């Protein structure tokens, strides 16, 4: 079942962050939401995550309004937000430990550690890891929950260009394997087009959706595609909206 955003408005005091936003996110798609800073894209993500509630309108998952956060919609934030007192392995198992069912499936934890290329670092603490690795731990911590929806709020925004590039490639491969729905927020046009199945571009003050379109590129993405006419066409459209 899709996520349905229905005519959502969100006010913070007198400031209107989002107005009349409607969006349907089909199961298993990779949706990128592109916008300048302050356009309300993170606000939209937090609403889907259930970290806040809409002022008006509603957001449905399986036809049920989203009221609070849940482990079926895990968020990866811009900063890794790891717990410095826990080892890498315990950080990844954190969500499983919070489940009130008995026992942690350590096999699953180690499987995800393998997928994320973190083997050999299980006992390390966050401050002993590089920024890119910390962010991989944050993604692993989300993946281990088997979420139906992975919400990513500029997860690579704080990384240097090279690490960022590697992580993008990695994320695409990963998505091919796990088949979860991914909602990915970014202000980087290339990143948005390169990663997304569908592209949503937002306009600011108040935040609204300007366009929502499919990305007509083959699923197996390659960086040569940044020269593809379809890519350039979308990029030109996005640039016009963002006013660059």
């Amino acid at each position, binding site marked *: 079942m899709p996520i349905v955003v229905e005519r959502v408005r969100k006010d913070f005091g007198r400031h209107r962050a989002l107005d009349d936003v409607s969006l349907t996110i089909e199961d298993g798609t990779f949706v990128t939401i592109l916008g300048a800073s302050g356009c309300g894209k993170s606000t939209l993500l937090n609403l889907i995550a259930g970290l806040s509630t809409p002022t008006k309108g509603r957001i449905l998952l399986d036809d049920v309004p989203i009221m609070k*956060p849940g*482990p079926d*919609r895990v*968020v990866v934030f811009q900063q890794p937000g790891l717990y410095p007192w826990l080892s890498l392995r315990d950080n990844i198992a954190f*969500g499983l430990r*919070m489940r009130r069912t008995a026992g942690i499936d350590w096999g699953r934890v180690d499987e995800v550690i393998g997928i994320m290329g973190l083997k050999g670092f299980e006992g390390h603490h966050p*401050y*002993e890891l*590089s920024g890119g690795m910390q962010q991989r731990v944050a993604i692993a911590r989300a993946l281990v929950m088997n979420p139906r929806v992975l919400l990513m709020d500029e997860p690579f925004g704080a990384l240097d260009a090279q690490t960022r590039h590697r992580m993008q490639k990695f994320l695409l491969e990963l998505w091919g394997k796990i088949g979860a729905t991914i909602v990915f927020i970014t202000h980087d046009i290339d990143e948005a087009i390169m990663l997304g199945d569908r592209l949503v571009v937002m306009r600011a003050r108040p935040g609204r959706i300007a366009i929502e379109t499919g990305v007509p590129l083959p699923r197996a993405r390659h960086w040569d595609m940044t020269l593809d006419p379809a890519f350039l066409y979308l990029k030109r459209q996005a640039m016009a909206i963002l006013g660059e």
Partner: protein
Amino acid sequence: MTVSPEHVCDQALAIDASPALGPDVPDQIPSIEADEIPDAFEIAPRSGVPWHHVSRFTTATVVICAVILWQVISDLHVFPPIALPSPVAVWLAFIKLLTKGYGGHSLVDDIVTSSLRIAIGFGGAVLAGVPIGLLMARNDLVFRVIDPFLQFGRPVPPLAYIPLLVVWFGIGELPKVLLILVGTIPVIIIGTISGVKATPILRVSVAQTLGASEAQIFRHVILPSALPEIFTAMRVGIGVAWTCLVAAELIAADQGLGWLVQYAGQALQVAIVIVGIIVIGILGYAMELTIRVIERRVVPWRGHG
């Protein structure tokens, strides 16, 4: 120019005590002291340069020079020996205190007595203060009930309570322990509250989206996040406790280091007074170091975000 690592550490601590909101930025400094606990008198060096050798050497030199200067001044009889006994005289007084004692009990007795008072008073302040701080930070009603007392009690110098405590409880152990408790507990409570409030919101959001309940977030996220500030409060608190104790013993006691200093002073036994002061200083420093060692065990991630 030599900067003592201790000093640098204290400054870092002062900055660290304020809430840090952008928490998980990777530390540029490679971690050295995660597991290993360095010599209690030294902070592990952060570079290849063996600064700790330099600093240890400097410290020793300064202390030796000061003692020599002291000896020279007393030998020159600038001041009468009764006012400024020489280091040798102080050392002899120290030996005599250890072996024969003064005023009825030995130096060891006085040290044990004072230390026990601190252990009970300060221990009680931590055992009561941390839970009270946690409750206040978590529950608005509890906060509103306790905060006025805290705000009123905080600016009152603990020494002002001594006459009242003496009238109420005499000069036994109870008033001293109570004075330490009353003087220290606001520090612990306020440190605990500020530790809870300084929990980065991101850590809480992460736990929420991973499905943690309110209680779980408190136990698994907020409590560990508050620990570094609780330890800072304890380090400040032990100093306050020590001040309270010595003051209480100066005024109303028949045993303890404060009493020793006071009693010897009245008899113009300045050498003994100096021994007492030095012992008080060393013990206070040792107590702070003990907390620091425990802190490194319990909060090894401190300073690493």
